[in-house]
């Protein structure tokens, strides 16, 4: 087992799937020269037909990936920064998500659209989006938001091998993280949450870069005598509701953490689901820790406090514990 960082894990997932399947190819913005760090050596190994730079033409590029997928290829599109998905929103929503359904199963669109979420790094309102929850309400899209290099590699492989379209969101706040990664091929099934830490008092559901924060908060709370279970859904669509419900049924307390804006967030969705199913088992109100419904400002002094933090997660856990032993 070797320590591997997030970007190298993604690179390795690309290279390994490209070696095993000639239908897989990478088209993306500035991938040949590895500007963002997850395509090192791919152009040299696989050549211009399988690793291609694309013009700044998101709708045509993402839509072309869909067309290529419909005729038997397995494209991976690297669109770099997540808000660059919006010029291609029509292709993603009206073609990619709907083709298999609307054409009665005659075609499949096996493609992966990768993009990075550069939030909390002073990029201001147009470059700091976490848009997975926007796309979550579109049927037909699978959405992956991994929280560490090991999961990122296993999930990217699963996404490329999957027959459905997958949006794959990479949290840049995780680029510096490392995982022990085995030499052997492995895959992490989409739609399966990971219990990142077991606990008995409170279930904390966290996404992407907030997972390491939730784990730190859990360690902090342990010192205060509170046992926190941390669940990372890994894919927000399909969402592994069963694992979350089983956990909350045991703990009776639920905190949903999500770096996206509160309204329509994954946190809101899972909170509603837990409320629907476990009303009579809850010992405290469900709490959400999310970004508020404001745009992301440039200045760090304004930006930093908007996102979930170890402190805000711990505070939410403490608040649910304040309902200790009293029925609500």
């Amino acid at each position, binding site marked *: 087992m070797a320590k591997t960082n997030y970007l190298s894990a993604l690179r390795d997932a690309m290279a390994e799937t490209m070696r095993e399947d000639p239908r897989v*190819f990478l088209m993306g913005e500035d991938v040949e020269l590895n500007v963002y760090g997850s395509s090192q050596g791919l152009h040299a190994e696989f050549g211009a*037909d399988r690793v291609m730079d*694309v*013009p700044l*033409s998101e*709708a*045509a*590029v*993402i*839509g*072309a*990936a*869909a*067309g*290529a*997928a*419909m*005729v*038997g*290829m397995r*494209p991976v599109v690297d669109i770099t920064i997540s808000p660059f998905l919006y*010029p291609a929103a*029509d*292709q993603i929503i*009206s*073609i990619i998500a709907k*083709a*298999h*359904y*609307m*054409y*009665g*199963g*005659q*075609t*499949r669109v*096996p493609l992966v659209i990768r993009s990075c979420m550069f939030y909390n790094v002073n990029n201001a309102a147009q470059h700091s989006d976490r848009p997975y929850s926007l796309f979550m309400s579109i*049927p*037909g899209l*699978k959405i992956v938001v991994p929280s560490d290099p090991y999961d990122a590699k296993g999930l990217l492989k699963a996404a490329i091998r*999957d*027959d*459905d379209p997958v949006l794959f969101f990479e949290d840049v706040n995780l680029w510096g993280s490392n995982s022990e990664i085995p030499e052997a091929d492995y895959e992490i*099934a*989409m*739609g399966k949450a990971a219990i990142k830490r077991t606990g008995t008092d409170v279930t904390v559901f966290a996404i992407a870069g907030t997972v390491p924060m939730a784990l730190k908060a859990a360690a902090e709370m342990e010192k205060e005598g509170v046992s926190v279970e941390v669940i990372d859904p890994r894919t927000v669509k*399909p*969402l*592994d*509701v*069963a694992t979350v419900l089983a956990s909350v049924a045991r703990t009776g307390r639920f905190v949903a953490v999500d770096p996206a804006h509160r309204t329509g967030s994954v946190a809101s969705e899972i909170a509603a689901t837990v409320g629907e199913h476990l009303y009579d088992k809850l010992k405290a109100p469900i709490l959400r820790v999310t970004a508020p419904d404001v745009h992301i400002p440039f200045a760090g002094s304004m930006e930093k406090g908007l996102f979930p933090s170890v402190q805000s997660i711990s505070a939410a856990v403490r608040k649910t514990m304040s309902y200790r032993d009293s029925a609500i």
Partner: protein
Amino acid sequence: MDPASRTPLEMYRRMVRIRLFEAAATRLGARGEITGALHTATGQEGEIVGACMALHADDYMVGNHRSHGHPIGKGAGLNKLMAELLGRSTGVNRGKGGSMHLADFSVGSLGETSIVGSGFPTAVGAGLGAKLQKSGRVTLCFFGDGASSEGTFHESLNLAALWKLPVIFLCENNGYAITTSARKGVSVPDIAVRAAGYGIPGHIVDGQDVLAVFEVTRTAVLRARAGDGPSLIEAKTYRFNEHASALPKLNYRPADEIERWRARDPIALLSKHLAATGLAATAVLEAIDAEVQSEVDAAVSFAQSSPSPDPAEAYDHVFVDPIVPLRS
């Protein structure tokens, strides 16, 4: 497609097939047996069939909301198309698409799409796939004058030209985007001149002359198959009916303009040509008319006697593999 099936008589048959299929659909729509909008291509059969017949059977075709003619022109059978219009489980899209979204992948019809301009990238992608697979297949992309104002038109021509993809962009310029004339919506009198902006050939052709459209498309197909890249063809044509079945007759087209174009019915023009050149006697054409009418009648009977989809089928084909059940 064998050479015999490319004869003018086969062109005549396919044009009549579109005309009579749509006449039957219009009658069924008026009776309420077909619900939703119907966009007929009546008057435009020449450009549709001329372009489609310049392709091989295994070439690809992408269309738009005016969607019945394209798959019929590409060789689709009528039964499943009519069943789709009636929303039956035997429909080509299993009742999931309806009139605006017909697709018959068995004849290379990769889907009609009702968001104007959304089909361009699919066509580019099918071309990219064919190039990477070295399959030799070309892709024909139908679009209207209105779609030439969409960003995807420009992005797609750029991408296809840049990568020398085997795509033929065929503009069905019928003069109007619903009620907005091309004079009000397009900055140049001839859309074909826009080809120059992308360094590809642009052709203008009389869309009422099926043989002329066939010839010019054949030239573009040869160029595409030789690896020399895309072409833009503008077929000047006219729709004889309103934009869609449900719309009121509004006064946006001068009566004399309608009369002038109706006098140039593409089916009548081909009939005259066949008679004048001695290629087919009137009796032969009348026999084809009768055969096609029987074919259409049979398609209507097939559709009417087919069951509606079970409501549970609404949950099928959202994903190839939903991973978790979609019905809770």
